[in-house]
């Protein structure tokens, strides 16, 4: 019997190492390293970027398929929201506009002008640090951290929750706009109204720190070659690569959300909570989100009109099982 244990032991060891194999699905399965370590608490599932009046709202979802009655963010996790307000974005390419929200003129120049860093103490209490914002601007940040309904409009997410961070602060601060003095002459050069936004998570591990880069979500780089045949190593490489290195190292567009603040936020220009991205990317995604049964076009519970916008968590709701493919 002992030898049988050898047999079983290795299979189970792989089970431990590999965890649940990600299906060809949403960004929810884009992090093989973190899945392998059962670090679902560090997995980024979605990033929404939208406006409420003059404010910018960033909603970062982590821990997909969170099935718990309460949640405490891990004390070894660092989440970051990065904002680039200097990169020029062209809107001359209709294909890029439709798929990515625009064309970043200098991909290697992408870098964060503003970073919001979230850490947690042993009680799960959030601690925020910022760079690129003044003390006054930091005080303007409205902040939420906790369990919410999974805002991803997709069949398997029905009834599921996520661990969410939501921030809201003046769009002008995100754009790096200086307060206008009354008698100041208009600038000769129009100000950049476009933001690039992305999120990262980091946890330490015995094999070194692991990172995830989550931005446009939904494997927005698909159907570019790296996503074809979804390969763990490629996905890990993506997660270990900074946006400015994407073009150089991966021959990909930077994995960031492009948001032209002069226009309404609607995917792929930012991402509103109500955007049914599964359907919106279907023409570009080579059916990568086919398992959307029962094919919802709206969230299973209503979003809130006010901060923190994400719906309260649900408890005891069984998610739908697999079903037929949804019509594209």
């Amino acid at each position: 019997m002992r030898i049988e244990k050898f047999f079983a032991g290795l299979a189970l060891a792989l089970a431990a190492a590999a965890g649940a194999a990600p299906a060809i699905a949403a960004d929810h399965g884009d992090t093989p390293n973190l899945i392998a370590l059962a670090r679902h608490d560090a997995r980024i599932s979605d990033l929404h970027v939208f406006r409420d009046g003059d404010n910018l709202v960033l909603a970062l979802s982590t821990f997909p398929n969170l099935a718990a009655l309460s949640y405490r963010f891990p004390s070894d996790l660092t989440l970051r929201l990065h904002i680039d307000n200097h990169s020029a974005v062209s809107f001359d390419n209709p294909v890029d506009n439709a798929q990515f929200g625009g064309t970043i003129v200098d991909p290697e120049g992408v870098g964060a002008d503003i970073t919001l860093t979230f850490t947690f103490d042993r009680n799960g209490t959030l601690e925020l640090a910022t760079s690129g914002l003044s003390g006054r601007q930091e005080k303007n940040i409205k902040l939420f951290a906790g369990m919410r309904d999974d805002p991803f409009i997709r069949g398997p997410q029905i009834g599921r929750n996520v661990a969410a961070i939501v921030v809201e602060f003046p769009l002008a601060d995100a754009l790096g706009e200086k307060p206008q003095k009354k008698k100041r002459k208009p600038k000769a050069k129009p100000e950049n109204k476009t933001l690039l936004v992305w999120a990262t998570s980091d946890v330490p591990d015995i094999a070194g720190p692991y990172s995830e880069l989550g931005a446009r979500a939904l494997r927005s780089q698909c159907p570019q070659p790296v996503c074809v045949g979804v390969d763990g190593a490629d996905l890990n490489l993506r997660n270990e690569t900074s946006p400015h290195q994407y073009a150089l190292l991966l021959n990909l567009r930077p994995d960031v959300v492009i948001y032209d603040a002069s226009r309404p936020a609607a995917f792929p220009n930012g991402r509103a909570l109500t955007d049914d991205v599964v359907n919106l990317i279907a023409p570009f995604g080579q059916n990568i989100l086919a398992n959307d049964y029962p094919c919802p076009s709206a969230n299973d519970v209503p979003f809130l009109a006010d901060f923190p916008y994400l719906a309260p968590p649900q408890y005891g709701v069984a998610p739908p099982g697999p079903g037929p493919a949804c019509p594209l």
Partner: protein
Amino acid sequence: MRRIFMLAAIAAASCASSPQEASDADARIQYYSGRIEAHPGVYALHLGLAQAYLDKARETHDPSFIHAALAESDASLSLLESVEGFKMKARIAAFRHHFDEALEWAAKAEALTTADVDDGAIAALKVEALLGLGRADEARALLPARAEDADGFHVAAALGHVYAAIGSPDLAAAAFARAAAFAEAEGADQLAGWAETSAAGAYLDAGDAALANPHLERAKGFDADSRFFRTHLAERAALEGRPAEALAVYERLIAEADDPELRRRAFLLARLQGDATRAAAHLVAAERLLRAALDAGESYARADLARLRADADGADVAPRSER
């Protein structure tokens, strides 16, 4: 790339126990213990430590590590119910031969998954438990009939186990070979070596060394140092009528890390060669190891001890016929 490193590290620690591999489990125990001290509320760290303890239990057959693994998996679940937490409980239960319990934990894990996730690992856990309960037909029903329809390592390996259990070495070898292909594609050479060795094992169990040889050759190319692989080399030597060679391999493995099953085999081989003193030493050591497990409340050792005693009372028994 780091994933591959981790897969290999964990797999090695789980299936084998050479000094180098044993130190991997020790390193993980030390690492995760330190991390938990700093971050006691992180459920995944407790799972990492539980896995390390379970691997250590596999290596040393010291039941205290099983209990430590249980405590850590319980700690993880008390912090957060997770698929991996339930799978860990199933894994530990299966190791203890509590197969009914393993099935219950696997069902809990399955209930937490969604249509988003195709968790072949849970299927593999259920298959292991069902095979342990002698319910091979049910195990088989969980899996595709053909190796080529297995969509991942877990399922292919589980299929190999099922076919091996029901005495279909060709089908078992095909399934294990497919598992090896999956592992190789991921760059996980140690896992590929394990799967190829398992394919060879299916043929060795059927008494066919010739068909086992190509798989052993491939396994050698992946991971010649593997304890699992070397165990099968010993099995082949015994099968091909070279008991002295087989005994020497077993004794080298025992010197690296003691194991009651290897002791039992060494006992049988020594006795076969008429070396009563050597045989007695292995018999005593095997019984000591099993009794320690029994004394710690691990009932799985009872059947092993009974078999050992049956071997001790019997006439010359070839090791392979005991399988």
